[in-house]
């Protein structure tokens, strides 16, 4: 991580807590403790007021305060304070005026869109301590030195009591790093702040020390687990007292590799069978169900044995649960015997899960789940529990029975349903032309290419698309002549998955953005670029596994390229699809398609795509 991290720095760190308390014998010989500190950590000295992490940033590192202090800002800061420029909705007259007066220059920007509203300073460089010498000396010519931000009126915030002090020995940012989530708050350096940046790989390695791992887990359990459990829709009606018991009994597990994007280009070339085989098993089909599995982050593949292989039946994302039907049927008595798992769950790349034991789930959670939220079989089983339904449930049973009688008496309807079921069954079979919608194949294609990461994926139905390129032309028209996508991309049968920003659930492009220019809009969920603070480093473009971010050299409206003052090189900025968020009309590409061929769709779960496909008959 830091080529300038010396043995003296490592020795000094080993005298400080918590590293002094770590048991070096618990680390393998190939990756010793000092090796982890040397290769996966970096020392920083921050000036007072300098921003260490920004709220909303997706980071790859946690920070440990070694000396001095840091201040955590307890209230959300306006985006402009952090240099970000929110996308303003333009009025239709403005939009029309701009449309009628294009600059005619490729990637033209006004000066105010190139320079930041806040002051960016070059980070003074990594500072190191010589062994036995407390003096620090900045390293000249630090290759990784990147502009950093100073918070204006930082003293005022501290005086107003809107900060919480983090002192030596305290770790922050580890939950966001481990769960691949955004930082919940901005942290600013206080007096004499010396911090150790520990990147994810290092953090994982340090957890080989049992005491360190237990301390981290305890911290998460105390401060974060209840919040994360409450965010799960299924648990939203669980009372506080029950939730406390759930927090106590829940186990935290991780499967696969967090940097799934690094292996993405290799794994996507494997056949579905090979890929399924290579994925770590979280829960095995046919096994006794012991826990309700909740996806905390990452992706899971639900599959079922079929012949001598496995076929994908669904995919899971953040907040989804696995094993609910089996648990409910087992708990409610079903046919008297506990129901084994009907599917397997596998980690696609990386999967972080919460495991709620069956007994705890049945006691604390199940009574507070709405029946409509349970799978149909489980909901029916709930109505016929062995101990007899409650007064309210008796009404439901009566209603259910009367509904069933009605259903039996209407001959035509049932017969029609039977005919339509037969038709649907035939629809699922691959046609001789290979163009019918085949659910397993489509699911496997989506998981294989990780399109299930997309929340605004662009899909084109090739059976309706006349290749007129009106979508690209519309995109270019509303972006001053610069289209933000081309009509290219992988296709599965009749669906083409276009290479346009999908505003992903797990936005790996945002990890490592040095100025926080790439950020997620809280209200819309879109991943936006604040061009004024984008320094054109290209980390996002390299990080995007789908190649949906492009670095472009920018010019002023008269066509003269902007040049960097120091290097005299053209200034580049990251560009990608912004869902036309500034326009009154919404995404121009989808609105411009005359044949209903193009759609922006959430692929993080399958129902929206199924509904869209069902409409196309």
């Amino acid at each position: 991580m830091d080529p300038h991290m010396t043995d003296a720095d490592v020795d000094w760190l080993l005298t400080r807590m918590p590293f002094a308390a770590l048991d070096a014998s618990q680390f393998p010989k190939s990756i010793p403790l000092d090796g982890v500190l040397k290769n996966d950590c970096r020392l920083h000295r921050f000036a007072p007021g300098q921003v260490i992490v920004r709220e909303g940033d997706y980071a790859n590192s946690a920070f440990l305060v070694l000396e001095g202090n840091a201040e955590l800002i307890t209230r959300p800061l306006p985006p402009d304070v952090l240099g970000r420029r929110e996308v303003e909705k333009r009025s239709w007259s403005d939009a029309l005026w701009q449309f009628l007066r294009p600059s005619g220059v490729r990637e033209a920007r006004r000066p105010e869109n190139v320079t930041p509203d806040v002051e960016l300073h070059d980070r003074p460089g990594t500072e190191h301590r010589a062994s036995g010498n407390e003096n620090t000396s900045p390293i000249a010519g630090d290759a990784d030195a990147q502009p950093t931000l100073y918070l204006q009126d930082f003293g005022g915030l501290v005086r107003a009591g809107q900060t919480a002090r983090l002192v030596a020995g305290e770790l922050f940012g580890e939950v966001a790093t481990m769960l691949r989530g955004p930082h919940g708050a901005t942290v600013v350096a206080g007096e004499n702040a010396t911090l150790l940046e520990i990147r994810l790989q290092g953090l994982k390695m340090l957890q080989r020390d049992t005491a360190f791992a237990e301390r981290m887990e305890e911290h998460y359990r105390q401060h974060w687990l209840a919040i994360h459990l409450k965010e799960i829709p299924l648990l939203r009606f669980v009372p506080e007292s029950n939730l406390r018991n759930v927090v106590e009994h829940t186990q935290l597990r991780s499967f696969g590799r967090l940097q799934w994007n690094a292996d993405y280009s290799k794994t996507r070339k494997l056949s579905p069978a090979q890929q399924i085989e290579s994925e770590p098993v979280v829960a095995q089909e046919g096994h006794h169900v012991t826990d309700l599995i909740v996806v905390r982050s990452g992706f899971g593949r639900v599959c079922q044995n079929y012949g001598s292989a496995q076929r994908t039946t669904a995919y899971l994302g953040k907040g989804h649960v696995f094993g609910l039907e089996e648990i409910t049927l087992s708990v409610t008595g079903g046919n008297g015997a506990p129901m084994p798992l009907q599917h397997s769950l596998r980690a696609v790349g990386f999967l972080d899960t919460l495991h709620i034991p069956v007994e705890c789930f049945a006691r604390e959670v199940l009574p507070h789940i709405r029946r409509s939220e349970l799978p149909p079989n489980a909901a029916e089983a709930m109505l016929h529990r062995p101990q007899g339904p409650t007064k309210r449930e008796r009404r439901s049973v009566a209603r259910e029975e009367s509904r069933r009688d009605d259903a039996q008496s209407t001959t035509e309807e049932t017969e029609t349903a039977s005919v339509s079921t037969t038709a649907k069954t035939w629809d699922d079979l691959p046609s001789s032309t290979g163009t019918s919608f085949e659910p397993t194949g489509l699911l496997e294609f989506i998981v294989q290419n990780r399109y299930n990461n997309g929340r605004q994926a662009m899909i084109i139905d090739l059976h309706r698309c006349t290749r007129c390129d009106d979508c690209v032309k519309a995109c270019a028209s509303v972006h001053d002549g610069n289209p933000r996508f081309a009509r290219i991309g992988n296709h599965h049968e009749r669906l083409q998955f276009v290479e346009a920003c999908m505003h992903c659930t797990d936005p790996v492009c945002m990890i490592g953005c040095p100025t926080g220019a790439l950020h997620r809009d809280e209200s819309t969920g879109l991943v936006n670029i604040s061009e004024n603070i984008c320094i054109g480093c290209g980390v996002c473009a390299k990080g995007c596994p789908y190649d949906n971010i492009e670095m472009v050299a920018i010019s002023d409206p008269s066509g003269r390229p902007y040049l960097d003052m120091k290097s005299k090189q053209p200034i580049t900025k990251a560009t990608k699809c912004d869902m036309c968020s500034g326009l009154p009309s919404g995404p121009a590409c989808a609105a411009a398609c005359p044949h209903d061929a193009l759609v922006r769709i959430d692929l993080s779960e399958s129902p929206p795509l199924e509904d869209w496909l069902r409409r196309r008959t």
Partner: protein
Amino acid sequence: MSVVERRHGGAISTTQRCKAAASGLVNRVTGAGRAYSFRRRRVVACGVVVVSLALAALLASGMHAALLHSGVMTGWMLISCLFLLVLIGVRRRIPVLPLGTMSVWTQVHIYTGLFAVGVFLLHVPAILHGRLIATGYLEGTLSGLFWFVSASGVYGLIASRRIPWRLTNVGEQVRLDQIPWYREQISRSVSDEVQSLTNPAAISVIGEFHRRYLSRYLSSKPSWLYLIYPTSVRRRRVLAGLVELNRYLEEEDCRVCGRIAALVRRRDDLDYQYALQLRLRVWVMLHSAASVALLVMAIIHGILAMRFVES
């Protein structure tokens, strides 16, 4: 015996089976039973057009009975429809404004066009008496142009549904503007294959074939005839020629021939894509140009007709 018992016993009468099948067929055709589908949209829109036309016909016959100029009413209807039909082009060129999606505009365009054809039949009663084109230079041209635009619209509707399906089945999805570049790449690849031959016999056999047929086929653009009606005749002839060469070649050189044949197939696929994509674009151009001409002529006709009516 209850329905369930009867079903379990397999004792469902033929009448019930027929009823269920008919009901299923109706559902499939109309898209009933679903919240929304293209089929349902089509059925509802056609229904609206039929009802509107019936009302227009009723109104026209009422006016005719009252000795009023029903032609004026249908004329105004037609010109309004024409304006609405042409507006889709304006919407297409202004993507920044929230004017509704192009998909909605296209649906309105299709069914307004259909309605306009019905109103045109009411407006020009001579057509109902067997004369497709009205008499007189202006009116004759106008009615001819109207039929041309209507026919091209119907063709466009069919083409825009069928051609994408055919394009998808070709396999590789190529953009029209990139096709010349791909053609050049294929031509270069074939030349490289021929250049890489080391066996003198193969150089003479494949080299001659390349010189006489392949290079001409690969460097030329598809003919006009092919663009109008793409066929696989040329590809089949070239491939047959290549297969014929195999008997004069050794095994290794036959493999080169096979690779060249694959490139020829790819080139033919590109030409096919080019012909179909070009057809769609030329159709849009012709249809929109003819529509504008029709609108202009309709306005002139309207002005003249109104002068006559007033006089």
